[in-house]
């Protein structure tokens, strides 16, 4: 009788402790997003045969309740240095501008880039914008299992888009450690076949621990063996960025 009681107690205790998939993702989403960021990104494009191509970009981004702005400027390699790409998202509208120094002209670009590749990498624009948190209410979340890694409980959550939601992927599976709630691995599926795998590491605290941000990201496309390693360097969070940065003038400035 006593034994049975102990078992019941343990079961109910574990039930109380376990989170649902929904709750895990809410905790992931509860991380605050920085209002502004600036830094350098070193992007390594690694081919199937191991050939590495390195690109370096400067990124400025700023967000308010109504507006999101991002400017990307290429630093290396030399032949694309100065190429700049500006995105301003406002009221559901997206404005994109491109500056190619060789043509010495700023061009406005139309058309949705969401599913397109981010700077020719294995990340899509969607992947990049979801790094700071996906729209969790667009998905159904299911806790598949928990794993234990180095003494830390890790939730494995499957997220499938709700009907009517336009998503790049048919499902995603995230590995979320219970101590940080910053996903360390996300698998992306297309037509329920594994397509890409994102690995987040070097998670660092910023703004006195207010933010936990992975600074080394690797996205591998399992269908063609190509991968991209993104390293965020000298990342500055919540610094004041002048609005003049997000202008044509600044794009053209070398």
């Amino acid at each position, binding site marked *: 009788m006593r034994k049975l009681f102990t078992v019941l107690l343990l079961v109910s205790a574990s039930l109380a402790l376990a989170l649902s998939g929904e709750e895990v993702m809410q905790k992931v989403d509860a991380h605050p997003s920085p209002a502004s960021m600036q830094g350098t990104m070193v992007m390594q*494009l690694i*081919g*199937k*045969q191991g*050939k590495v*191509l390195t690109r370096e970009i400067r990124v400025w981004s700023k967000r308010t309740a109504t507006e999101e702005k991002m400017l990307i400027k*290429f630093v290396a*390699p030399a*032949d*694309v240095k100065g*190429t700049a*790409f500006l995105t301003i998202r406002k009221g559901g509208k997206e404005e994109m501008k*491109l500056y*190619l*120094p*060789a*043509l010495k002209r700023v*061009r*406005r*670009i*139309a*058309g*949705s*880039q969401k599913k*397109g*590749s*981010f*700077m*020719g*990498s*294995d990340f899509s624009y969607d992947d990049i914008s979801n790094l700071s948190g996906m729209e969790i209410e667009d998905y159904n979340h299911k806790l598949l299992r928990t794993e234990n890694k180095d003494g830390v409980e890790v939730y494995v959550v499957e997220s499938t888009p709700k009907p009517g939601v336009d998503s790049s992927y048919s499902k995603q599976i995230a590995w979320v450690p219970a101590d940080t709630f910053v996903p360390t691995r996300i698998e992306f599926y297309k*037509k329920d076949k594994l397509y890409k795998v994102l690995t987040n590491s070097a998670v660092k605290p910023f703004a006195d621990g207010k933010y936990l941000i992975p600074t080394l990201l690797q996205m591998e496309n399992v269908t*063609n063996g*190509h991968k991209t390693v993104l390293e965020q360097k000298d990342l500055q969070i919540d610094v004041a960025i002048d609005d003049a940065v997000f202008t044509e003038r600044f794009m053209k400035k070398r």
Partner: protein
Amino acid sequence: MHILSQLAIRHPWRVILLFAALSAAFGAGLRGLELDNSPESLVPPDLPAKLLLDRARDTFGGGDMELAALEGEIWTPAALEQLRAATEAVSGIEGVKRVTSLASAKRMEEEDGFLLVEDLLPENLDEEAVATIRAYVDNHPLYSGRLASSDGRYAAVIMEVDPESDMKRLNHEIAAALAETWSGPVHLAGTPALSGYILDTMARDIPRQLLLAILIIGLVFFVNFRSQRGVLLPLLTVLVALVWALGLGGWLGFKLGMISSILPVVVLAVGSSFTLHVLNRFYHELAAGVSRREAVLLATRETGLGVLVSALAAGAGLAALFSSSIPQIKSFGLLAAFGVFAAFLASSLLAPSILVLLKNPRRVMDPERPDAISRAMRAIGSWLLGARKMVLLAALLFLGLMLVFVPRIHAETSFLSYFPETAPPRAATELVDRVFGGSDNVILIVDGDLKDPELLEAIHRFEQKVATYPEVGSAASIADVIRELHKALTGSYGLPDSREGVAQELLLYQMSGDPDDLAQFMDEAATTAQVTVQVRSLPSGAMRDLVERIQSDAEKIIGPRANAVNTTGSTVLMLETMRLILHDQYVSLGLAFILVALFNAWLLRSWTVGLVSIIPLVLTVSGQFGLMGMFGVPLDTATALIGAIAIGVGDYSVHIIVRYLEELRRGRSTAEAARESVYVSGRAVFFTALAIGGGFMALLLSGFAPIQTFAKLMGFTVSATALFALTALPAALLVFVHKYGKQEVIQDA
């Protein structure tokens, strides 16, 4: 032979059990047998063009091009929706690496001051959107005539498929997916589609041909022996041989191609002749009143030598194919030689063992009884004595005449030539060639600095040059992509004037689409590019000429600005196959003649005899090639085998030599020996020729044009070898072989 015959008589059950066990072991290998007729299976794995193609596939992620032409009014919202569904459906098929159609195409243009980059087909398709798309496509050099026909009647779905896939499954799935999504007719062309058709045809043909060959050979045997066991026993031995040969292929992991559909018939036809000789003697002895055991012993021992010599010669002729550099022909040679060896063992061990155990037949008919055929043989024998010199002279004239035509032979390896004029793959290919300018491609690999505008300009000039050839549909490369982009950015077609300009425009392209779109044209580091020249399906000769022009244009126009330019692609592999077939032919035939002459000289203890023994073969083979040259029959993967197979099946003339020598040894005159050998062995030669020739006629059923041609040529071959064996051979024996050693040939062997 003595040991073999003793074994059969003393331990018949053990022999039968041993054969059963071995057949089961080899038979287990049948499950591992695979069919494959890809261009890759036809070239040596270390061929430079093959290595280059492997590298290209690795770098550009492509595969063999398969092209589907979807027929119907394409410029309607409904049709484009169907095209979108069709593109989606084939993309999901395992083995399809990349799909290009209007549904996967991008639209990049200047609109109201914006650079517009988006999918060509918008989410919602209405009449107006369709009109815009049509206008865009009509003015787009990469899309017009390539993804949509200019008359709006056909849409193309270009699939790049993994050459390693099972083409049969792949093509069934592609056809099913397209039929389900597209309401009009669908035409499939390109190397993978043809490979799929080839595999389908093989799967259908092999059992049909085998069955028909069994029927024909059975019938010939029945006419000869008029008994059930006279039919069943030879068939049993060859079926055993067939299981061994194909089973070995399975164990060795061989993949059978188009020509392997000949293999069962070769083993069947050649192998059955062995047992025919053994049974002939057995019934002859039984009819003469000898006991059953004694008859078996005599049959195996006395016909044994002839069977052994012809088995060795057949094996040697076929094994000579192993010297071929074409993997498919190599494995065919090995398996056919092994099958012949197995048939020899079965006819001299298994057949006698069964004969020992069976009761005597109620009615014994002597197959060597005098009948119309033997009377004819006697007449030939007598005639020859007076006409020996004339016969040899005629043979020499025939040889000379045929050799004149040999140099006219041309080779043909295009997959399309596999099919008779009326076969569906031909029609589909012709349609695709006509509507989309080609179902095949030649790939040009350019190594160099691809950000150099001058190199890009050279590539563009090269594309313009080759596009003027009537056999070329279009060409596509990174230069076209950049020109298109440059137009969208600046309003006019052209290339940026600096390295930086190229690099930046490329970056823009990568940013606005799937990086894979670029990967098919250029590697990430911009050091290797792939230029795809879409070409019509052509006969090998015309294709060689075209590829040579393309290569020379590339060297002249692109060469000076690049580090290297090379052509490859499945078309180039097929051309290499052609070159190898021509080259191998001399090697394997020469080798086969030498091997046969050596075996015969060694077994019959005389160099003169060895040389004389190959006279019928030399005459027959030169006849084959002479006729091919005369009638323009091309040398292809199937007809390339006829020389070696002629040597394999044609050596039944050895029975005449053995008999002639035996008669000489017994002290008869050359005239008596010649007459006797033609009279006694002539009948067997006649029936063997009938069985073998009949067996090969089953191949006339084949769905492959080369195999039909092969069957017709085999008809000539078998009749010619028989004719020469009964005329030129005894004439040569009469003229050149007068004395023979005292040893007993039969015992010795």
